[in-house]
């Protein structure tokens, strides 16, 4: 009797999650998969086959775009880690109480406005008649206006800025759990700053680093607004391709195939990343 009751409770608690997964994730994907394997042969005529996937591999343009997107996302992830780690270390280890909360909040505040507004903020700063260009002219460093927008560096800036929080939060959590006495002990045992960082801090923070990297990488790869708005004419991004297949070309079949390829290939990259860093997903997410 009791076991029946607890079983019922278990399923009741599970049902929101199952509903969420089924209706919002699995069902749409099944539908999208069927769209992606129907090839268009004429007006309102479709055949089943993997032709749409073949298009991706046969047209260098598409896999080049994917490679570029992946490469830029990895670079953005790395940069975010490089900038985010010192910030997280400072917040977790060198501050206490109120300062800590304040600093943490300051990382959070930019996320109170929408991504679109933040991106427009960057456009106001970086455009030819924008704040940075005008300031440089004002202090006499340059003679004419400079265009900072519409290149890869602008995209990178936007991506790092957008995803900084998602790196800092898991890092702060893992670094917080590192006992200060361990660091003191290693100084006692003759370690210096560099060896302590390499032998003590980074191994301990590894799960945080990996989970932060996964989130930032996925966010960058799936970002649409930032690359399109800041990248201008050179903004070739895989999600942009998917959007244009769906909306401007009415080619849902190819768009769905691209969607699945993005899902598969990005999962593969994350898998390889986990293997290389010798972390397992359960360990990373379990902490």
């Amino acid at each position, binding site marked *: 009797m009791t076991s029946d009751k607890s079983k019922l409770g278990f399923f009741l608690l599970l049902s929101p999650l199952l509903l969420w997964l089924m209706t919002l994730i699995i069902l749409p994907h099944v539908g999208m998969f069927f769209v992606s394997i129907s090839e268009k042969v004429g007006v309102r005529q479709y055949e089943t086959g993997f032709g749409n996937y073949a298009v991706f591999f046969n047209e260098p*343009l598409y896999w*080049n775009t994917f490679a570029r997107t992946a490469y830029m996302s990895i670079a953005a992830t790395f940069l975010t880690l490089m900038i985010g780690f010192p910030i997280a270390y400072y917040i977790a280890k060198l501050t206490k109480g109120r300062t800590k909360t304040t600093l943490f909040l300051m990382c959070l505040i930019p996320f109170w406005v929408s991504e679109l507004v933040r991106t427009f903020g960057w456009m106001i700063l970086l455009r*030819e*008649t924008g704040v940075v260009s005008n300031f440089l002219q004002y202090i006499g460093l340059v003679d004419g206006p400079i*265009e900072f927008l519409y290149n890869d560096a602008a995209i990178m800036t936007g991506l790092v800025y957008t995803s900084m929080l998602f790196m800092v939060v898991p890092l702060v959590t893992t670094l917080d759990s590192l006992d200060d006495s361990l660091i003191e002990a290693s100084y006692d045992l003759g370690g210096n700053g560099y060896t302590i960082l390499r032998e003590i801090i980074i191994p301990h923070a590894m799960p945080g680093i990996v989970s932060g990297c996964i989130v930032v990488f996925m966010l960058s790869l799936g970002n649409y607004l930032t690359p*399109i708005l800041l990248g201008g004419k050179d903004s070739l991004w895989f999600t942009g391709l998917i959007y244009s297949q769906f909306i401007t070309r009415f080619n849902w079949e190819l768009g769905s195939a691209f969607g699945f390829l993005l899902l598969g290939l990005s999962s593969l990259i994350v898998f390889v990343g986990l293997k290389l860093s010798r972390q397992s997903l359960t360990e990373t997410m379990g902490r």
Partner: protein
Amino acid sequence: MNFKYTCSALAILAMSASAANAETLRLLTWGGYAPEAVIEKFEAETGHKVEVTKSNNEEMVAKLRATNGGGFDLIQPSQDRIAGAQEEFGIYKPLDLSKIDTNLFIDSMLEATKGNTMMDGKVFAVPHVWGTSGLVVNTKMAGSVKDYTDLCNADVAGKVSYRLKRPTLIGFAFAMGMDPFAAYGDADAYQGILDKVEAKLIECKANVKTYWDGGDEIKNLLRSGEVIASMAWDTGGWQLNADNADINFVAPASGALGWIDTFALPSRGRADEAAYAWINFVMQPEIAAMITSEAGNFTASKGGDAGVDDALKARYQTSFPQEAVDNIKWYPAVPAGLEALEGAVLDRVNAAQ
């Protein structure tokens, strides 16, 4: 107690009765085509409610395709997006012309749109707003730009913008001496034209500052002087002209590209009566004039240009002397499948370094 119940029951009955007559019109249209003042007047006069969603051609078709023609009661795609989309996705339903007051329309435009959107003897759209795309140029700084291909001139390098969409392909093809509309029916010939345009656009890419997406974006770029020559809509040019006399819309030497935005019914629209009422309402000359002053473009309403303010008329006449009007290239209906060819070209131009 009993009295109270009777009252509320009566109230509910009354509400449902009025709901049967007054429908909610879900209108999918362009920015400026349904000004607040017009909606208020319409609601007061007919009792119908209007909900407006703003969009563009591609999104309109994509949205209706996603719902098999549901979710909206009246939509306003350009006339070239009717027949092809109908053949492919079946998202429209034929119009009942007896419910539309055709006397309100300029005859030539009505006939042209009817012809363009006819399938199996049924008419799918009537015209509403028309306009052109051509060049919006800062005439002081980029006086040399007279045609689409002049955007690739060295003297405007780095200060040019256009959209990476089909009008650009068509405009460049005309400026390069070809006639893409004549090749619409022949995929091979059309591909030949596209190949030449692709080469030109890739060569021209270094000249481009950025490809613009929305009307506000290009207006911003032109206003700030970051862009001095662009391919854009006539209204954008006229609006900028009001602020800065140097900037104006220029009809290109090879002809401006003319579009007509229409009224069409989605196949699963629910408020047809309200939709017909809206069409007949906004085509009245005085309402049409209100829409023209809001959207900046003229309508297919007979006498609708009479109430438009003189400044806009003057700008129109500067940009369009009679021979430029005669030279407008009106978009014919896009055959199904053509977008795939164009899409591949646009992708390659976007990817070119």
